């Protein structure tokens, strides 16, 4: 197996098993270098300076936008809005589009797997507008059954759906959901936060109206994210924030706004972040999603086969290999996930525990929280072995207290 760990200085230099890439990925040297180089050699504000380094920064920023557009096959790069991350992207769509779209009695449909950032914005609007927020629920395999899609009906104006669950790892057939939504005239936002580092995304093929992701989950720096929106929708929408760069003319009493994409990018932008994101996308392109999927699915399958041998562990993951992504949630029966994660940490294994910003999902599953191991390109079977050893160690230590 190819070992990418050497590309990631934090992992190459520390004796830790990092299994929290669903929270944020580590950064490869090429991304660190690109950001470093920006600040070292052409740091400046964009869109305003006529001097050389500002032109260079502006070009790098717009090249990054172009790169994102090609990466998700968006076509026209003015449909790519840079944000802080998925959360800002969903909130932008909520404030500038869904807020105006939804009327009393309309319906918004989401899945029970949504992250709070793709749930609370819609719930707030539904409450305000006296609209219905309806959930697509899961079958015993933690998947959305086809018949659930009947909830998307003629009253449905908006659908927000994750491509991959950050708790269960379930891969959702968003293409089919979008087809169904479009057949009733609803607009769809896809949350690609957990998908972007693991699956090839083609917004044209999906026919997604909006798609959001965070750079930091695909090896890019913190604080840079993307909102893709279809041009005809973005053009109709009102601006998100007001300020510099997003305007065309400002008079004492009125303002006209800049064309896309600047209309949605008020104020000084995270140019270093965009440069880092471009480098990260280059890195992923070089490896290729085919290889990424092969490596990661092998890891998850291997981890699951080992964990399933431990009678005291319950895993929350689909039995269908095709429905899985790089996430594996589990619990040691009788132990609290925070205690498990704390003890795993004493063995240098970094996992997340808690509700993973998906409280409605955990309530639906009837659990308070889980331990979550999540995988990325740099993980190895050896990491999985260490995880399993650490789980065994944890159980061993607590065993005598379990009733």
């Amino acid at each position, binding site marked *: 197996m190819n070992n990418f760990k050497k590309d990631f200085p934090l992992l190459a230099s520390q004796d830790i098993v990092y299994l929290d890439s669903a929270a944020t990925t580590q950064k490869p040297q090429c991304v660190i270098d690109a950001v470093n180089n920006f600040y070292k050699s052409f740091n400046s504000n964009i869109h305003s300076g006529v001097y050389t380094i500002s032109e260079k920064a502006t070009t790098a920023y717009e090249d990054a936008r172009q790169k994102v557009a090609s990466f998700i096959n968006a076509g026209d790069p003015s449909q790519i809005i840079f944000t802080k991350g998925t959360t800002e992207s969903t909130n932008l769509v909520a404030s500038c589009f869904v807020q105006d779209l939804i009327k009393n009695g309309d319906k918004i449909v989401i899945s029970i797997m949504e992250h709070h950032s793709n749930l609370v914005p819609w719930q707030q609007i539904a409450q305000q507008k006296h609209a219905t927020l309806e959930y697509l629920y899961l079958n015993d395999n933690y998947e959305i059954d086809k018949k659930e899609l009947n909830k998307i009906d003629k009253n449905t104006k908006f659908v927000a759906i994750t491509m991959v669950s950050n708790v269960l790892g379930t891969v959702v057939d968003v293409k089919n959901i979008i087809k169904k939504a479009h057949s009733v005239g609803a607009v769809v936002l896809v949350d690609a936060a957990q998908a972007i580092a693991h699956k090839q995304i083609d917004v044209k093929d999906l026919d997604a109206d909006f798609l959001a992701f965070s750079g930091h989950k695909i090896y890019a720096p913190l604080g840079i994210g993307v909102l893709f929106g279809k041009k005809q929708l973005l053009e109709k929408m009102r601006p998100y924030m007001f300020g510099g760069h997003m305007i065309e003319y400002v008079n004492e009493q009125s303002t006209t706004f800049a064309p896309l994409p600047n209309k949605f990018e008020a104020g000084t932008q995270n140019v270093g972040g965009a440069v880092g994101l471009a480098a990260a996308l280059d890195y992923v392109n070089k490896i290729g999603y085919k290889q990424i999927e092969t490596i990661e699915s092998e890891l998850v399958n291997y981890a699951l086969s080992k964990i399933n041998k431990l009678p005291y562990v319950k895993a929350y993951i689909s039995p269908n290999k095709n429905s899985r992504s790089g996430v594996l949630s589990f619990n040691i029966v009788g132990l609290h996930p925070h205690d498990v994660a*704390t003890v795993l940490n*004493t063995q240098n294994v970094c996992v997340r525990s*808690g509700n993973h910003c998906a409280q409605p999902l955990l309530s639906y599953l009837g659990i308070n929280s889980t331990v979550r191991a999540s995988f990325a390109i740099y993980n190895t079977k050896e990491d999985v072995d260490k995880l399993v050893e650490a789980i065994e160690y944890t159980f061993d230590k607590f065993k005598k*207290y379990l009733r």
Partner: protein
Amino acid sequence: MDQFEQLYGELIMEHAMNSHNKRGINSPTCSSLGHNPSCGDKISLEAKIENGKIVDMGFSGEGCAISQSSTSMMIDLLKGKSVDQAKQLIEIFLKMIKRESVTQEEKKLLKNARVFENVSNMPSRAKCATLSWHTLEDLLNKLNNN
């Protein structure tokens, strides 16, 4: 003492898994609910306070070993104390976890609850250890205001 024992010693685990304080009490005079959203810990405290004294106290709820045992040890420490004494001890405990200066004498007053000093350098777990102490502090402060 390895890292495991520092956090999950015999004492902490006994209180976490088998607390004699995890029970309803007779005719409570007040109660309060504490919630730690990062961990999902939920602790419900019930107390019987008469003439400025904590006569009885019990708890229910779910949570990690740290929050459960910290609650149980807090009850052992504060049951029978006056409200004012309890407030002082709560303050010492919270200061100890926040790594503010606490004298050895003060720490001694905390008896078994001193063991939680080890979580003071783990911000996410410190919340678990302080949950019930904050909850009781709120409850006692409300009494005064009434």
